[in-house]
């Protein structure tokens, strides 16, 4: 698998297709990943509320970013309107719950499906245009959906926003960070496992083929239009679920949050993490969630010297996002996932790194 193979020590040959397609190269990595998830289960018992809220943020943004990576990193289409899907999911879940009394437990996946339908609609141009033109079409869809949020009062509550109930199962309400963490963790594990398996199937490989050389893919029998549009639908599904989790976490959804800047942040997550890398998506999301916090900390430290800076914190955070994108693209275009592999390879061969 491209990059991975060059990082493997010599002598490690794969003799079956099954071995080549495994998610975890060795049993040890599988146990480490499992152990990591088990450790995460105990975080709410010990973690401070601040850490917990950051981790929940990483969770719902990470799910949405994974969807974007599916369309950008795996299928090679550019989407500049991902935050509109994210917002649609948040509104849809709140709407299903408020207007039809569907329990939140079912509303979240249903919101994902609704958002997927919108994504398929937005993805229709992908059947006809690609690359840059498609990017501009998704940009238009971002503005059109944003406008829709502001206008469709029956769906979004208009300018006043929509209330979203807390997640409940059998009367137990997940209304604290500690309990909601498990809901988000469940969805993160579910979606990441699903994606890891998806990219190993025929459909997943077809998506990658569309990215790598769409003409060859078409000649080999991959239906380009179907896979391009489907990748948009899938990415919207992830964004919808992420958005729904976001809505039920905050308890309130308003249209202002889903602007183009959030779309750019999603793109930044997958570029910084690594295009076409599932693990990288998570790393990128962590990076993008921590970046504003670090900026806030930094501004707090120098506020004694420059008190004016605290008022312009929002600008500084945005500048940091822009700068992070530019610097990563120039100096580490393959993202954090690549850097992580390099570090692993370095230690594996230490001290004889060549």
């Amino acid at each position, binding site marked *: 698998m491209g990059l991975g193979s060059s990082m493997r020590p010599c002598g490690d040959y794969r003799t079956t297709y099954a071995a080549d397609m495994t998610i975890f190269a060795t049993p040890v990595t599988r146990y480490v990943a499992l152990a990591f998830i088990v450790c995460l289960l105990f975080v709410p018992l010990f973690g401070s509320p601040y850490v917990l809220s950051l981790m929940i943020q990483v969770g719902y943004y990470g799910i949405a970013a994974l969807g974007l990576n599916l369309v950008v990193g795996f299928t090679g289409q*550019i989407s500049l309107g991902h935050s509109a899907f994210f917002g649609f999911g948040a509104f849809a879940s709140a709407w299903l719950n408020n207007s039809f009394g569907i329990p939140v437990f079912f509303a979240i996946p249903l919101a994902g499906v609704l958002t997927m339908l919108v994504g398929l609609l937005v993805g229709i141009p992908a059947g006809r245009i690609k690359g840059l*033109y498609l*990017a501009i079409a998704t940009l238009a869809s971002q503005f059109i959906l944003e406008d829709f949020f502001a206008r469709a009062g029956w769906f979004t509550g208009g300018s006043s926003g929509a209330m979203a109930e807390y997640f409940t199962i059998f009367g137990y309400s997940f209304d604290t960070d500690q309990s909601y963490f498990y809901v988000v963790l469940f969805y993160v594990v579910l979606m990441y496992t699903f994606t890891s398996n998806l990219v190993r199937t025929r459909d997943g490989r077809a998506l990658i083929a569309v990215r790598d050389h769409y003409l060859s893919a078409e000649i080999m029998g991959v239906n380009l239009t179907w896979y391009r549009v489907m990748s948009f639908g899938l990415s919207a599904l992830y964004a919808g679920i992420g958005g729904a989790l976001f809505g039920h976490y905050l308890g309130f959804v308003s249209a202002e949050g889903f602007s183009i800047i959030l779309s750019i942040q999603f793109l930044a997550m997958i*570029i910084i993490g690594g295009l076409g890398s599932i693990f990288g998506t998570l790393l990128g999301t962590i990076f993008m969630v921590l970046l504003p916090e670090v900026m806030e900390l930094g501004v707090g430290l120098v506020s004694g010297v420059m008190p004016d800076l605290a008022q312009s914190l929002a600008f500084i955070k945005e500048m940091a996002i822009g700068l992070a994108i530019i610097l990563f693209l*120039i100096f580490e275009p393959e993202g954090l996932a690549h850097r992580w592999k390099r570090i692993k390879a370095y230690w594996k061969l230490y001290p004889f790194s060549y």
Partner: protein
Amino acid sequence: MNYELLLQLVVNGLIVGTLYGVVAMCFVLIYKSTRVVNFAQGEFLLIGAWTCWWLLVKFELPFWFGFPLTLAFMVIFGIALQVIVLRPMIGEPIISVIMVTIGLSIFFKALMGLLFGNETKSYPKVFASDSIGVLGMQVQSAYILSMGISVLIMVAFYYFFKYSKIGLAMRATAFDQQVAQSLGISVKAVFAASWAISAVVSALAGIVIGMVNGVSSALSFFGIKVFPVVILGGLDSIVGSVVGGLIIGVLENVAEFADSQWLHIGNLYTIAPFYALVLILMVKPYGLFGTKDIERI
């Protein structure tokens, strides 16, 4: 039906449309010669307008001195941007190039916000009279001026690409980089020049708009509005950008009119160009004058 209002709106549309045309021309110039889609075009307007405002208000420079100084700054800025940020991106996939200009866009927008704040600030008065009558309508003199400047820029572009040596070099580079290089054209210089020209002319447009409406971060939205324009005109057509600018300018004003008279949807002024954009992409993705990509296997 209110014909007078409609006529007024159409005239407004034409005036704004010429400005769209100018900004779109700058966008097309960069795309044509360097194949970079510049999402930071709107920020060029913003930076130009703020720099000029800063020189005129904070340093109280006279307009005839502050204005050329701004343009000189934009030349350096455009070249620096190309050399430092865009040059390493040559040969990278299109998503990286798009993202780097998006990164530049949010960086500079936030930087301008940090330096100059959120409020709209107005320029010192440069012209005496406020509005003059044209065909029985009151039109702001600054609008007339902006239209004049826009037309002047368009004519200048025409002659630049038709007769000047660097203009011809740019066209040659746009046509085929390797051939241009083998004819002794420095492709690097052409790339830098196209960014510099684009930055200067955008800044000019920014200053003109700033004089009419005041300077604020809203200026950078021109960079987004430019997409319907260039898609309609064709991504690599200078003529197309002018025609597209006029059409989109009129379209949004007519949409506003239709909205206020019959539809009552609201906000159609901003959103109509984007519906048009999707429609054009579905029907005629290469626009009115754009060259069609033909792919050979």
